[in-house]
């Protein structure tokens, strides 16, 4: 299937240069000069990816992307802009108004590569079999209405933090689940108050935290509990390692990436119950087995695939989706999120290592190389860390 990409920019010269640059591309390209034209084009044509400028007269980029998201939820949205405001980029990614962000001026081949990355991930996320399986299964965790309401409140820029806190507090079960996640998955946050938790962490986290609290049901199952311990520890380690390597606070959109990276396993648990339990037992006894491969052999798909598809379906930011998809194969991740995928890859590895189980994740040299650290440096850094779960 040939992908169709629509470019929107009010500067005609930009469009012409893109057309030239992509003359040999293996996807179809179209060009329009305004948000209004883009909407009109979308009405009459099949578009898979829209690449839009931000600053445009009348209808600006974020307005256009918001409308596209509402009208054509399957169209993948990408921003191409000279406004290199980190905050805005993160905001767009977090609200899922953009799956990727390309800076102007872009580098040679950057357009093609980004679009290829998107196409590749999109193919995986649109695995028809898995989608069908998810749709037909009644054993999947469902998101409560409160989650939907909170998501709406978060997306509505005019809503107040207090409204959201009030809403969470109306359901004590959810509130206590959220607190459990907050208290175990973040360093330095220990609180019994939703308000303190939300104010400390910020709203960006909330969506992922609520999903986590919904998916990881408190159960007596050994593996499920172990998985929860592993996920919360991975999140803590992700934050620590990221901040150690980049010497800055982890961006909000990355701070919950560790929490949901293994959500596919929980899903497999819920759907296949004992069958998946068995698969895990085998893995526990034979650490050399690569779990995803045995999953694929038994269930036709891996926990990475099903996890990322579900997260994408729940409209989580592209960063979190990609971490779930590629955390075992960071070399396959898109350029956009390679940093966080590599960090979670390491955190995943160190988390299992510290939980003293026979589960072992494979660690790849490429991740250390990409992050420009050595294994020894990370070992040294983590030596004095406390891994309480």
């Amino acid at each position, binding site marked *: 299937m040939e992908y169709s990409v629509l470019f929107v920019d009010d500067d005609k010269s*930009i469009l012409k240069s893109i057309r*030239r640059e992509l003359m040999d591309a293996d996807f179809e390209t179209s060009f329009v000069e305004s948000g209004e034209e883009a909407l009109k084009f979308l009405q009459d044509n099949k578009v898979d990816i829209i690449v839009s400028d931000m600053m445009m007269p009348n209808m600006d980029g974020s307005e256009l992307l918001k409308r596209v998201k509402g009208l054509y939820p399957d169209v993948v949205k990408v921003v191409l802009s000279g406004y290199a405001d980190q905050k805005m980029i993160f905001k767009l990614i977090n609200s899922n108004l953009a799956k990727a962000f390309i800076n*102007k*001026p872009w580098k040679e081949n950057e357009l093609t590569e980004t679009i290829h990355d998107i196409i590749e991930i999109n193919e995986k996320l649109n695995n028809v079999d898995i989608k069908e399986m998810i749709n037909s299964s009644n054993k999947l965790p469902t998101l409560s209405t409160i989650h939907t309401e909170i998501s709406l409140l978060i997306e509505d820029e005019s809503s107040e933090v207090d409204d959201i806190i009030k809403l969470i507090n109306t359901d004590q079960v959810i509130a206590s689940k959220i607190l459990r996640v907050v208290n175990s998955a973040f360093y330095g946050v220990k609180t019994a108050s939703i308000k303190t938790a939300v104010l400390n962490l910020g709203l960006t986290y909330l969506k992922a935290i609520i999903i986590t609290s919904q998916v990881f049901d408190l159960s007596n199952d050994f593996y499920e509990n172990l998985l929860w311990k592993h996920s919360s520890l991975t999140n803590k380690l992700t934050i620590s390692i990221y901040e150690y390597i980049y010497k800055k606070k982890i961006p909000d959109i990355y701070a919950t990436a560790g929490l949901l990276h293994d959500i596919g396993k929980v899903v497999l648990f819920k759907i296949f119950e004992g069958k998946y339990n068995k698969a895990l037992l085998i893995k526990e006894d034979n650490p050399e087995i690569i779990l995803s491969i045995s999953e694929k052999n038994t269930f036709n798909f891996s926990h990475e695939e099903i996890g990322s598809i579900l997260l994408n379906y729940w409209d989580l930011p592209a960063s979190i989706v990609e971490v779930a998809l590629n955390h075992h194969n960071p070399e396959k991740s898109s350029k956009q999120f390679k940093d966080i995928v590599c960090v979670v890859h390491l955190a995943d590895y160190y988390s299992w290592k510290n939980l003293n189980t026979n589960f072992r994740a494979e660690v790849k040299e490429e991740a250390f190389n990409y992050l420009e650290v050595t294994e020894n440096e990370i070992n040294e850094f983590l030596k004095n860390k406390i891994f309480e779960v």
Partner: protein
Amino acid sequence: MSIQINNTPVEGLLMGTAVHKIIQFSNDIEIGFECVNADNAFQHILGVSKEEICEISLITLLAEFDANLIGFYKDFVMNDEEVSTEFYLNISDKQIKANLMKINKEYIITQLIDIKTHSELINNISKYETLLKNSTDIILATKDSGEIIDCNEQALKEYGYSREELLNFNILDIRRSIPGNLTIEQIYIAVDKGLIFEDVHSRRDGTTFPVEIRAVGIEIEGGRIFYSIIRDITKGKNLIEDLNKKNQELVSALDQLKETQIQLMNEDKMASIGKLSAGIAHEINNPLGFVLSNFNTLKKYISKFSSTIEAYRNLKTKLDNNYRTLLSQGLDEIEEIDKKNKIDYIFRDLEELFSDTDEGLDRIRKIVLALRSFSHESISGEFEEYDLNEGIKNTLIIVKNEIKYNCDIKTNLASLPTINVIGSEINQVLLNTIINASHAIKEKIEKYNIKGEQHGEIIITTYCENNCVCFSIEDNGIGIAKENINKIFEPFFTTKPVGLGTGLGLSISYEIIKNKHKGEIDIESTLGVGTKITIKLPQLLK
């Protein structure tokens, strides 16, 4: 006969005297009085002129105030045993005591004393005496020669001498000779007209103190007496020192304030530049984006050309080697390569690629030039020749991106002479006012939710008027509320949300235009309609 009346100076106008001749008529019953002499005070007390006193009988005059007086006088004259008598009467608000004395059978003296005023005066004099005695000022009386002939109590207290000792001194004994002193002669010459001067006096214990002297000379028989009021001004001196110190402090505080103001102005400048840098980056990023992209495409074109040309050359080689049979096969290959490389498309596109790239490079060049002239003027900070129209054009290139999405800009630039100004500061004012205008438009569009319906408009006009170079910036933005229009030049006044406006822009513009350039800045605005800011800069400013 003539009788001289000598008034003592103190009594002055308070005691009047008149002499009357007694005229006895033949019937022995009627008596008349003829005025022989009356002094000014007498007239003053009675309130009549000398002529009236001479023409009208005294009795008639007095009878106006008290009718009984006719009889009283008659009885006194008739009674040979009485030499003097007295009576009281009120003349308007004055209380008068009258003394009558018979000189002989022919003359009678009438003395009128204003007793109320008189006693007040006596009282006052004693008050003054007390005042002098208790004065905290030193009072000295000296002769021409400088000999001290009188002093008050304060003098004894201040100098530490007894009265006897002090009255044996010459003024020179307590005067401390310092350079710049007036000589005693100079003082005495000047004192005739009254003199205030400063000096230093010494005490018995050898200590000295600064004094302020007010002296006046009074002529007396055989010379002059100088009265000096001498005041210890140590406190005053300290006060002045204090004041000087305070003044110094104020001056340095003012310096600091000026420094702070410069800092604030720089901060404001940085804030506006910061706001713009993102826009400028975008403005450069766009052309740079497509120029780079075109350049990369060009590299690709070249490789496509080379591979196509190579194919031709291969064929040529083959032909040269007489493989003529391969000709048609070779041509087919070439055609295929030619097609694959889209050589036709490339040829068609090359011209446009170059003209696009040229245009992009020119856009970048212009922005960089404007930035350079903007930043050059920012660095120098001195009064120099400045072309206002040029400044507006440069500022517009820089702010264009910040504002172009919300508003159109119209310029009506008249031909202007250059002015002598601090270019960077005028640029700052231009930047601030243009950005303000665009913000006002943005605010209106957001407030009334009229995005796409109404486009903002900024009109920039320059003109010459009364030796001033002027510009106005007019917008159709949100406008300023009536109650705020008087506050807009106040520092830190802002209606923008916290964190968005420093509240310094307009106050700094005011400072720059009004104080530094002696120009005028004026704002007219209607809420919801728009704002017009007019700035006038004098053409000749040193």
